[in-house]
């Protein structure tokens, strides 16, 4: 009984707490009390001289060494003046300089929205259009833009990422997902001879984005890094014409009562309202071009579902676009003359989601008025399946080599 430790004690259903009639188990086990050999020795009791009131005992403190006959000095407790970072406690939230009474709902890179794309559309006051816009599709269909031996190159890229790039027999998703995205981007960049504007772009990682906006009475913020981001020197041209933008006034945002639109977002009272694109002023590549969101966790429960990934893409693209719009046109809420366009690609190594978002308005508080537009191309498989090792049944190779 004396050996019962903390966790085992709970199993004993704490008979000692009932008062009398305890089983005899101590309230704290030996581990919590301290093993006897490691206990600090008790300080000696103060001299009896200190109990005499009105008398100042003569101590050996001045002599700096023990002197028999003189009293033991009692020193005031020492305040070191600083605490090592290991033992520092954070001040309570109320005392933080950025504490605000109004709660803010923050979307960061691990937030999974319950309603997925619908919720993201409501939060960003956006209208969804399935499929990529004509302008983008025409670029892809244009035979002049095709890379020579495109199929062979892409097949090589898939083989390289899924099979060749590591000494293991079956590479894990954490390695092959970034490899496949990097290789595909490199393949696109190989067209730099035909399209010199590809040289006016740069890739950045770990930039901290932060934007806040009001949606009705709730304050919503997108904060955090979204992975790799391609920035360009020239802005992307707007895709939808003014008529289409005006036509979105009639669109009604889909609500999903009784689910609150802020479910899945992190509620916090300590936040900073200032916008931050993640780059300082004077950056030579000011316009965000494409975001690349990778879901490269090995275990499926750690990866986002396609719907959640699409929602994350919408929100991060929107955050970048809003921060850019506020930088260019000021903080007032208005309908933008020149809409800001940001693209995004999300993948888990096999399934790709493409997104183009056009920010038409920064007036997000009300539900009426011009809405933003998003074109979404979801669940595009780069390849159906990939067997790293040949499937052998009854000593005969059945599956692909």
């Amino acid at each position: 009984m004396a050996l019962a430790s903390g966790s085992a004690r709970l199993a004993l259903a704490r008979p000692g707490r009932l008062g009398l009639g305890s089983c005899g188990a101590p309230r704290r086990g030996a581990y919590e009390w301290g093993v006897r050999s490691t206990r600090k020795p008790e300080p000696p009791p103060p001299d009896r001289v200190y109990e005499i009131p009105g008398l100042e005992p003569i101590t050996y403190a001045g002599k700096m060494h023990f002197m028999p006959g003189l009293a033991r000095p009692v020193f005031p407790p020492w305040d070191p003046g600083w605490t090592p970072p290991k033992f520092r406690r954070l001040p309570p939230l109320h005392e933080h300089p950025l504490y605000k009474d109004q709660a803010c709902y923050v979307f960061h890179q691990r937030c999974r929205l319950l309603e997925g794309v619908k919720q993201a559309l409501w939060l960003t006051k956006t209208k969804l259009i399935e499929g990529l816009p004509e302008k983008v599709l025409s670029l892809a269909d244009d035979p002049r833009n095709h890379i020579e031996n495109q199929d062979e190159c892409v097949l090589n890229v898939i083989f390289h990422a899924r099979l060749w790039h590591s000494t293991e027999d079956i590479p894990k998703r954490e390695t092959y997902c970034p490899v496949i995205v990097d290789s595909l981007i490199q393949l696109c960049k190989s067209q730099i001879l035909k399209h010199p504007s590809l040289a006016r772009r740069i890739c950045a990682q770990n930039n901290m984005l932060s934007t806040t906006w009001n949606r009705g009475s709730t304050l919503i913020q997108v904060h955090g890094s979204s992975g790799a981001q391609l920035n360009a020197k020239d802005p992307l041209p707007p895709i939808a014409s003014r008529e289409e933008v005006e036509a979105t006034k009639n669109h009604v945002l889909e609500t999903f009562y009784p689910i609150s639109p802020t479910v899945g977002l992190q509620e916090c009272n300590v936040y900073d309202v200032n916008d931050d694109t993640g780059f300082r002023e004077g950056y030579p590549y000011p316009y965000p071009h494409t975001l690349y969101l990778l879901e490269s966790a090995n275990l499926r429960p750690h990866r986002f579902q396609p719907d959640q990934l699409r929602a994350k893409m919408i929100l991060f693209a929107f955050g970048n676009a809003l921060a850019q719009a506020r930088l260019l046109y000021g903080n007032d809420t208005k309908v933008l003359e020149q809409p800001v366009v940001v693209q995004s690609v999300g993948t888990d190594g096999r399934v790709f989601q493409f997104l183009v978002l056009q920010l038409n308005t920064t007036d997000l508080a009300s539900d009426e008025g011009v809405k933003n537009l998003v074109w979404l191309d979801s669940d595009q498989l780069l390849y159906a399946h990939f067997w790293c090792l040949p499937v052998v049944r009854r000593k005969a190779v059945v599956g692909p080599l």
Partner: protein
Amino acid sequence: MAAARCWRLVLRVPGLSLHTAAGAAVTAPEVTGPDVAAAPVARYPPLVASLTADSKAARQRRVERWQATVHAAKSVDEKLRILTKMQFMKYIVYPQTFALNADRWYQSFTKTVFLSGLPPPPPAKPDTEPAPALDVAALRAAACDCLLQEHFFLRRKKRVPLYLEREAIASPFLDQLVASLTGLLSARNPALAAAALDCKRPVHFYWLRGEEIIPRGHRKGRVDALRYQINDKPHNQIRISKQLPEFVPLDYSVPVEVPVMNCKPDKLPLFKRQYENTIFIGTKTADPHCYGHTQFHLLPDKLKRERLLKQNCANQIEVVFRANAIASLFAWTGAQAMYQGFWSEADVTRPFVSQGVITDGKYFSFFCYQLNTLALTAQADQNNPRKNICWGTQTTIYAMKWMDKRSNKNPRVRSKSSENEMPDVEYCHVRNKVNSSKKNTGNQFCPSPALQSLHERTSLGHDVDERYTYGLESANDGILLKNLPLQA
């Protein structure tokens, strides 16, 4: 009776001649294939040494049988498997090492000759048209952009502490630099446009060199080959599908000698371990991009310049770069050669060439490596006049002077107020380092004379001004690249 006498006579002959006779007898029917009808067929089986006897001849025959299986292997994977499947204790060679004078040791392990400077330019072919002029300004601007982005413009979550600076700032900077420069230079070199870019992919190589007498154990006193393994992880590497042309001919005799070390490699220090022998260039053998172009290495904090100077090892600064280059590039070119089916008994018939850029975030050095021979084992190296060659430059810097606009105090002390200001980048002296490493197209590789002269003028190592976080501006012509407006 006569046959018995013959047999006894033959036995008295030392093993070697028996073996060669056996060899001649064994190879005779294979060599004279078409003539077999003309020559008489041997009436008795060839006299060869035993396979299982405890004798040198038997061991030699077993070794040759094993080598014959390697020669007869149908695919490269099978060949590599046979060469690497037996595991024994081997020395682990680390390209990035703190060992003193490691470059001389590595030269002896890899039979490499080190020549300072860059290889000679190839003779200009009269029929090919001259290449378009190199747009150095654009390259410089791209490099400046990458540098400024990582060091200044990018707002990160937390202020990066000093010990994480290398991996948080220098590493993405190098990634970006490689990507942007490859893109810009692919106009001059279409092979670069189609190249594969690897990021932190492993490179492994396993080879045998030299022999030793086993000092203790149940095999004490016997001769054993020395085995080495390199497990390297270059920060970036560029692989292409066509091989780079050679710098010098395959049998070019270099007047410099390969350094010979009189001690065992344990003295370096080098330690032995037994684990999987791997040979890997960054991809498996099936990849069409199986030839190497350039590798980029980032030196760790343990080997940084300030640390070496504090340890009074100022002369080891260059050694660190050279050792890294020799080991990494030898491993890469050796693995490339083995992927093509060459090995120590089947030596390379064409030289394998690769380049390397080694940096610690501020200082760069450029290396070129030509692998002329893989035959480094004691048996194969007996009559091998070929040597591998490594060309390398001194560490060259590109420097920026960060100045606090308000007060000319020590810029190392970055006060909170000065962080928000744009540093007054007086001049960003970016060397055209890319000239040498990236310009290597199929036909035009020439380190420019400007590069060579700049090398001589800006040799450093001792000129580092410790006060500044970013080294020293080089002596003379600071090329004004960016004069950014001062923030009020």
